[in-house]
């Protein structure tokens, strides 16, 4: 298996690691059994994601996709973050091995989960914005 230089660079120096106190939205996806969990924290002011932090338990690709996903939405309007796809994360990392593509899906879902939490806290039904987020644990590898 080969990781791109960009994946290794983001793994070695992950951006936006940590937590945000009093975050406006927090989302967590994945589970311990499958070996990857991502937790995203969002600070949102006037519809703009002014800060984002993550914590990840998982492989090199899980860390790198989390790091890249946070970079891609930081400073952007919520609408842009909602449009972020796992494909965009993969492209920004110069590709991922096929067996690791699920990590990028997890990164996309983690952001959506955090945004759903934000809408819920605002008293807004998140479903029209982020779609239906499954409560069920996904099977490993998605």
């Amino acid at each position: 298996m080969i990781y791109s230089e960009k994946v290794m660079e983001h793994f070695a120096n992950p951006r936006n690691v940590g937590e945000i106190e009093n975050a406006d939205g927090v989302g967590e996806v994945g589970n311990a059994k499958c070996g990857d969990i991502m937790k995203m924290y969002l600070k949102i002011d006037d519809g703009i994601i002014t800060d984002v932090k993550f914590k990840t338990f998982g492989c090199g690709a899980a860390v790198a996709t989390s790091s890249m996903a946070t970079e891609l939405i930081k400073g952007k309007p919520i609408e842009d973050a909602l449009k972020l796809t796992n494909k965009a994360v993969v492209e920004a990392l110069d590709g991922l091995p096929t067996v690791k593509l699920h990590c990028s899906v997890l990164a996309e879902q983690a952001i959506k989960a955090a945004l759903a939490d934000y809408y819920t806290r605002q008293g807004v039904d998140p479903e029209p914005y982020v779609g239906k987020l499954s409560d069920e644990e996904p099977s490993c590898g998605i």
Partner: protein
Amino acid sequence: MDKRFVYADNSATTKITAPVLEAMMPYLTDGYGNASSIYSIGMDSARAILKARETVANAIGAKTSEIYFTSGGSEADNWAIKCAADVAAKKGKKHLITTVFEHHAVLHTCQYLEKHGFDVTYIPVDEMGLVHPEDVEKAIRDDTFLVSVMFANNEIGTIQPIAEIGKICREKKVWFHTDAVQAVGNVPINVSEMNIDLLSLSGHKIHAPKGIGALYMRTGINLPNLIHGGAQERNKRAGTENVASIVGLAKAIELATADIPAKQARLSKMRDKIIAELLKIPESRLNGDPVKRLAGNVNISFRGIEGESLLLSLDLEGICASSGSACTSGSLDPSHVLLAIGLPHSTAHGSLRISLGDLNTEEDADYIIEKVPAIVGKLRAMSPLWERILRDEDIDAE
């Protein structure tokens, strides 16, 4: 300590050492004759193979005529198991016994046979990673033709009671095969005293090249070919002999078995120091029996982190090691070996295997001891799973 390169994955493969390469060089250069040819450079190759066969036989207490060179351990395992099944089927025997934590070369071969009408019993191992001989004895039936139990486990390094199992199989008149890929050169082996009928070994785990191994087949057992073709290996294994690698294997096995107790003493001292120091890390555990294990094997799980991240972080510090996490096993589940000894998935994901070999030094061990705790700490600091462990949540309940 200054950054160094520490290769601590000797159970995966090893470096070809200078004496081995030197022994091989004549056959990689001017000594290229086909061992089946009649002219002198051909006969030189044939003589080199004969001498190599004798060396390999001596290393495991076998007769020269009982050694057949193969492309490696996997081929030897496939040959032993599939072709023993061929012989057995003609006698109406359809049952074989193996363990749940074998190498995939054995497990997947057994699964293949299951698809072809054979019945396989997979013996469990205890929480220390040991097979109980009485479990093997109980599993033997009238139609059992083969027992296959690995000599030493490749992940957790546990050394199995091979002589006891061999005795049971001999009494019950069932063939006994052992995959000794990890044991050769690390544990004294005598196929005759241990009642072993078939044994697989590999070169690249003991500083010979990749792509060479051997099957020991006890006199009186006449397995059909796995590889058909020319008359090489006394008509038993076709294909022009890989002379240089055969010579390399012989040199390597000669060196590896020259003084096993001294090697064990040197490596186990480093092993035990690493284990003692790394177990000081909170929420860590040693996998496998602390005593009945290969002298160079360390296998520790750190809760709350994932193995591949650990390996990549170690690599950034110059340390090569391995893990039983799903991400490094090429499947969605973590190592079948770690699950077999009862680890929950989440803990199995955070395992680290360090396998020390002849080329490792005390400084290497100290460097590992210095680097691992900080890396585990860094990965835990960014792990949402670790937060939950600290809150005493049952993370395996999901």
